[in-house]
Structure formats: structure tokens, C-alpha cells
């Protein structure tokens, strides 16, 4: 196999997989065939991604012709690895629980994963944008997938409206870049092609940065562009919530970081991200404190984690160097495991609970003591939630630690204040995570879940895998940093010097 074929492997497998899963679902009476095929497609794409690490990176490849189209970087490999892994887990958990005749579910799921992989490997801004739209269009139908529920359709509607506006702003930002770079959009050439304007009242590149951050920031759910997120994550099927929270939203942050990394140092893109990140984590935590419903609480708690990552990326772009990117990328990796596991665990609990009690609201009070009856799901939720809170030595701790260290070292007193804000937010999150944990194992004589059966095997096995990885990545962070550090180093190398 030549290098070009290898480079196109992960994306090619997924693109073919979209058609294959649709044909399998349409031709077979059992949707589980398509589900297993989707899991296999993601697994093969994951294998192809791992294989890419054996090649010399970073490298640009021309595929399907002479024009350069794919740039295989460590960041791309990281994003593709996470996306295909979570995609496989989401496919497996969905496999036994899908209604007959829903042949579009798995192709859309694969398309979402393919879009994320495209974002990671895109060699220029336009390919990145098309990949972003592939991910977005697939999710437009997956969020309101339960069309029988009015609330799901309303959530899908809001999600669609906000993200369409975001997409228009993003392509507008890209067109501004194009107009100011002399027609260059390739990431490896943009750094030298973009020159900040001197003596102009408003630098067009600064406006382009703003459009890109706001445009992609809608999908990333950066505050105040987050209003679609709580309803969308709550109403989407649990596997899709896991995919959105663990993969799609961080992919938008990767899109932002790839775009902003090529701008001249005089454009304060890092500061802009730090500002957005600080507001996002604080507002997200405050909003989550008021939530009582399990899935909605997890949805709201996704917002501060976006904030932590944005702060890390911002500090890195500001000049915080490799440590900041290490923290941000490690948290993207950990977030996929923690959030994916937590959403699937809550999904498993609600799935069993509403079978015996259809009207159960799924609040902390109404599930008090359920952990004794569903130990696997409860244990997975405990690990996921503690990791999300940043409790050492679980996966969520190390990314935050590096972001705190990088913030404190980057910019004197302001940096120390930012680091303290990250720490304070981490403690603040215990305010809603601890009551959730307490409710799982509370002794409530009035409530009995004796009729509940343990988590279905099709969910329990992926849950155990994801939870084990959350623990392993926490206990052996070196393994995680070996994955993310080359990506962080490559990103830091592309950042232009901040001009005085």
C-alpha cells in the first residue's frame, strides 16, 4: 500500500461505510446488521488511523489527483482516533436497541464521524469547512431523531437554526481569509501568506478571526453561543449525545485552533479564546448547578469542559507553548472518554428505569438508590463524573493540571488569576457532581427499584471498556501524553511569534 492510499484510508473507509451501512440497513430486515457493520467500519477506520502513525508525520498527500488535499498531522491522527473509537462505541450501544426500519441512523452516524475525521486531516480551510458541514448536516437529523417527541423536534429546530447561522459566519470568515491571503487557503502556506495590515483602523484579519471563532464557536457551544446545547444533548438518543459531547463539539474547537494557528501573532486570537473560555467554564458551571435531571445536568456540565479546552487553546495561541496545548488536547482525549461513558451510563439507567416507570422524570431525587440495582451503570457514572470533576488520578485531572500550569506561567498576575479561575471552577463543579453521586447510592425507603434489571449487555460491555480507559489514562497519563504531545508540539511550532 502506498503512502497516498494509506493517508486516505481512515476517511475513505468511513465515506464508503456511509453507503455500505445504508445498503445493509435497507436490504436487511434486521437493523442490527447495519449497526454491527457501522461498528466494524469505525473499527477499521481506527485501525487505519493507528497505521498512519507508523508513517513519517506530518505529511501532505495528494489524493484523487494532483491537488494537495490531505495533511496527515499528529493532531489529525488524534482527532481521527478519538472520533472512530467513540463512533464504534456508539454503534455497538445502538445496535440492539434501534427500531426496525430506521435505515438512516447508522449512515448518518458514520457521516458525523467522517466529518470529524475530515476536520482533523483537512489540508486547507475550505476542505475543513466542507468536512464541518458533513458533520453538521448529519447531526441535524440525528439530534431530533425521535420525531415522535415534540421536545426532541423543538431541540433539533433550535440546533439547526443556530448552527446554520454559525456556518454562514464561518464561510464568511474563510472568504475574508481568502481575500487577504492572495487566494491561499492551505494551512501550511497561510502562515506566510497572511500579513497583518498596518495603519488600518480595523484589521480585516481580526474581523476574519472573529467570524471564524463565532462561526465554529456556535457548534463548539462557547458561551454565549451555547443555548442550543442543553436541549440537543438531552433530547438526542444517548449514543448520539455521547458522540456530540465527546467528538463533535471538540472537533469544532480543533477547527478553530487549526484556523487561528495560521494568523499573524499581532492578531490577539489567543486572548480572544482565553476570554471566551473563562466565561464559558464559569457560566457553564453556574448553569449546571441548578439542574436536577440527570441527562440535562450532564448536558450543562459539558459547557465548562468546553471552556477548559478553549482556555488551554487560547493560552497556547497566546504563547503558552506546548504545555498549554498538551493540556487542551489531553482534555479533548479525556473528555471523549469521560463524557461518552457518563452519557451512556445515564442512558442505560433511564432505559431500564422508564421501562418499569414510564413517567419517571429521571431527576436525582427520582433515581435515589438506583446504584444498588444497576451497579455497572452506576459505577461507570461514578468514575465518569469523578473524572469530569477533575479528581486525581482520573483522566480529567491531568488536562486541567497542565492548563492551570500553562496559564500560571504564561502571563504574570493575569495568568495566575486565570489558573485560579480554572481551579475554582473545578471545585465549583463538585457542587453538582457530588449530589448526583450521592443520589445514586442514597438509601430511600420509599423508593424501590427491585423490578429493575441490570444494564443490558450491549451497553454494559462498551461502558466497561470506556470506564476502564478513563481509569487507565488517569493512572498512566504518560500513555495519554504520548498520544497528544506530538500534536501539541506540532501546533506550538506553527504559532507565529507575538510581535511586540
Amino acid at each position, binding site marked *: 500500500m502506498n503512502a497516498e492510499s494509506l493517508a486516505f484510508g481512515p476517511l475513505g473507509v468511513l465515506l464508503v461505510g456511509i453507503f455500505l451501512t445504508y445498503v445493509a440497513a435497507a436490504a436487511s430486515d434486521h437493523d442490527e446488521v447495519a449497526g454491527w457493520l457501522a461498528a466494524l467500519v469505525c473499527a477499521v477506520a481506527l485501525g487505519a488511523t493507528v497505521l498512519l502513525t507508523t508513517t513519517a508525520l506530518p505529511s501532505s498527500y495528494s489524493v484523487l489527483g494532483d491537488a494537495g488535499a490531505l495533511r496527515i498531522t499528529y493532531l489529525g491522527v488524534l482527532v481521527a482516533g478519538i472520533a472512530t473509537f467513540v463512533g464504534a462505541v456508539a454503534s455497538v450501544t445502538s445496535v440492539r436497541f434501534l427500531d426496525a426500519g430506521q435505515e438512516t441512523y447508522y449512515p448518518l452516524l458514520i457521516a458525523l464521524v467522517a466529518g470529524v475525521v475530515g476536520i482533523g486531516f483537512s489540508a486547507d480551510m475550505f476542505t475543513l469547512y*466542507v468536512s464541518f458541514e458533513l458533520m453538521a448536516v448529519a447531526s441535524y437529523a440525528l439530534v431530533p431523531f425521535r420525531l415522535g417527541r415534540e421536545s426532541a423536534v423543538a431541540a433539533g429546530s433550535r440546533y439547526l437554526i443556530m448552527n446554520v447561522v454559525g456556518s454562514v459566519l464561518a464561510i464568511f470568515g474563510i472568504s475574508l481569509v481568502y481575500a487577504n491571503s492572495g487566494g491561499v487557503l492551505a494551512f501550511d502556506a497561510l502562515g506566510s501568506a497572511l500579513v497583518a495590515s498596518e495603519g488600518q483602523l480595523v484589521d480585516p484579519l481580526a474581523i476574519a478571526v472573529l467570524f471564524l471563532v463565532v462561526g465554529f464557536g456556535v457548534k463548539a457551544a462557547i458561551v454565549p453561543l451555547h443555548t442550543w446545547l442543553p436541549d440537543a444533548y438531552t433530547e438526542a438518543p444517548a449514543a448520539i449525545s455521547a458522540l456530540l459531547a465527546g467528538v463533535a463539539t471538540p472537533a469544532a474547537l480543533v477547527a478553530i485552533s487549526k484556523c487561528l494557528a495560521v494568523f499573524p501573532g499581532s492578531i490577539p486570537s489567543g486572548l480572544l479564546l482565553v476570554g471566551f473560555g473563562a466565561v464559558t467554564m464559569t457560566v457553564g458551571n453556574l448553569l449546571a448547578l441548578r439542574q436536577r435531571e440527570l441527562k440535562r445536568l450532564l448536558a450543562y456540565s459539558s459547557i465548562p469542559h468546553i471552556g477548559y479546552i478553549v482556555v488551554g487553546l487560547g493560552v497556547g495561541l497566546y504563547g503558552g507553548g506546548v504545555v498549554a496545548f498538551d493540556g487542551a488536547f489531553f482534555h479533548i482525549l479525556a473528555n471523549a472518554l469521560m463524557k461518552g461513558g457518563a452519557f451512556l451510563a445515564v442512558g442505560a439507567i433511564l432505559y431500564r428505569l422508564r421501562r418499569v416507570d414510564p413517567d419517571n422524570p429521571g431527576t436525582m431525587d427520582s433515581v435515589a438508590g438506583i446504584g444498588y440495582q444497576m451497579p455497572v451503570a452506576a459505577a461507570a457514572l461514578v468514575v465518569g463524573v469523578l473524572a469530569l470533576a477533575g479528581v486525581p488520578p482520573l483522566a480529567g485531572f491531568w488536562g486541567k493540571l497542565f492548563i492551570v500550569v500553562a496559564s500560571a506561567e504564561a502571563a504574570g498576575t493575569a495568568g495566575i488569576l486565570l489558573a485560579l479561575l480554572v481551579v475554582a471552577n473545578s471545585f465549583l463543579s463538585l457542587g453538582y457532581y457530588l449530589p448526583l453521586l450521592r443520589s445514586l447510592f442514597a438509601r430511600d425507603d420509599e423508593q424501590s427499584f427491585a423490578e429493575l434489571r441490570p444494564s443490558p449487555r450491549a451497553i454494559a460491555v462498551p461502558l466497561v471498556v470506556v470506564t476502564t480507559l478513563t481509569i487507565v489514562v488517569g493512572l498512566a497519563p504518560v500513555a495519554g501524553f504520548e498520544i497528544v504531545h506530538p500534536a501539541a508540539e506540532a501546533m506550538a511550532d506553527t504559532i507565529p511569534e507575538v510581535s511586540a
Partner: protein
Amino acid sequence: MTSTVGVAALAATILCGLAAVGLRDMIWVVSALASSSLALAVFLFVEGMPYAAVFEATVAGGLVSVLFLLVISMTDDDYVEFVRGRTALLAVGAGAIFLGALGVVWQGLSTVTLSEGTDATEPFVEQFWAAHPLDVLLVTVLVFVGVLAISRLTTPIGPAETETGHADDPTQPDGVEAAETEEIA
């Protein structure tokens, strides 16, 4: 320097975008957003990004607007009433507009040379493919995914929509798991 047409298109993009934010009737919101996308497509075309213009006009201005309308149709009773009885008329009208727009775009693109290195006599499609093969492939897949999304959003909602499924536990026969399957699916 941006031409007069480009400035006008830019102004139209911003005005239509603002209108989309300000309007309350969802039908007009969709129309304003689609118009904004089309104006942006003109701007991109004038600025020398014909492939981005084609993408913006077809995917953002067309496909996403259709998805938008479908989602609204499930939430807005007035829209359902409006569409009822006019389906054929609307379909013919939308088709005519789409084909007309496609013809205009194609006519315009046929005069375009994508880059200085390419042969001006070479058909546009071949130039387009040679310059952006992966983008063309991704847009093709994107259109297919858009059709799947439309297919999903237009699926009739019946009893099967909420819960059937397969038992995951060998102690329970298939079909018993009917309830609540949606929560994890």
C-alpha cells in the same frame, strides 16, 4: 479590491442575515437565510472562489434550507396548513427555481478559469475536479447525507417510532424490551 457587485453582494448577505435574526415568521427566516447564503455565494464567486460559491449556493442555500423547512414543518402548525394542498405547486415552483439557479450558475461558471495554470479551453467540470478532487467527493457525499437526513425527517411518525426493539437478555424473549428502547438507541 472588491468590485461593486461584490460589495452589493456583501451588503445583501449582511442585510439578509440581520433580517433572519430579526424576523419572527419561520418561513421568512428560512427565506432570509437562504437569500443570505445565495448573496454570499455571489460574493465568493466575485472574489474568485467559484468552488466555494457553488458549495454555498447548493448546500447552504439549497440543501440546508430544505432541511430547515422540514424541521419547521414538524413544529409550526401554520406552515403545515400553508403547505397542505399546495404540495405539488410548491414542488414545481421550487424545482423551477432550483433548475433556473443551476442554469445561471453553470452558465457563469463556464466562463471561469480556475487558476492560471489550467487550460481555459478545458471544460469547467474537469478543471473543477482537477483542482479540488477531495472537496468534490466530500460535497457529493454531503449531498447524499443531506438526502438521508431529509428522508429521516420526512419519515411518517407511527407507533413503531417509539419503541420496539430486541431483547438483550437471554432470559427475556425478543420484543419484551419494547418500551424505552429509545433512551439508549
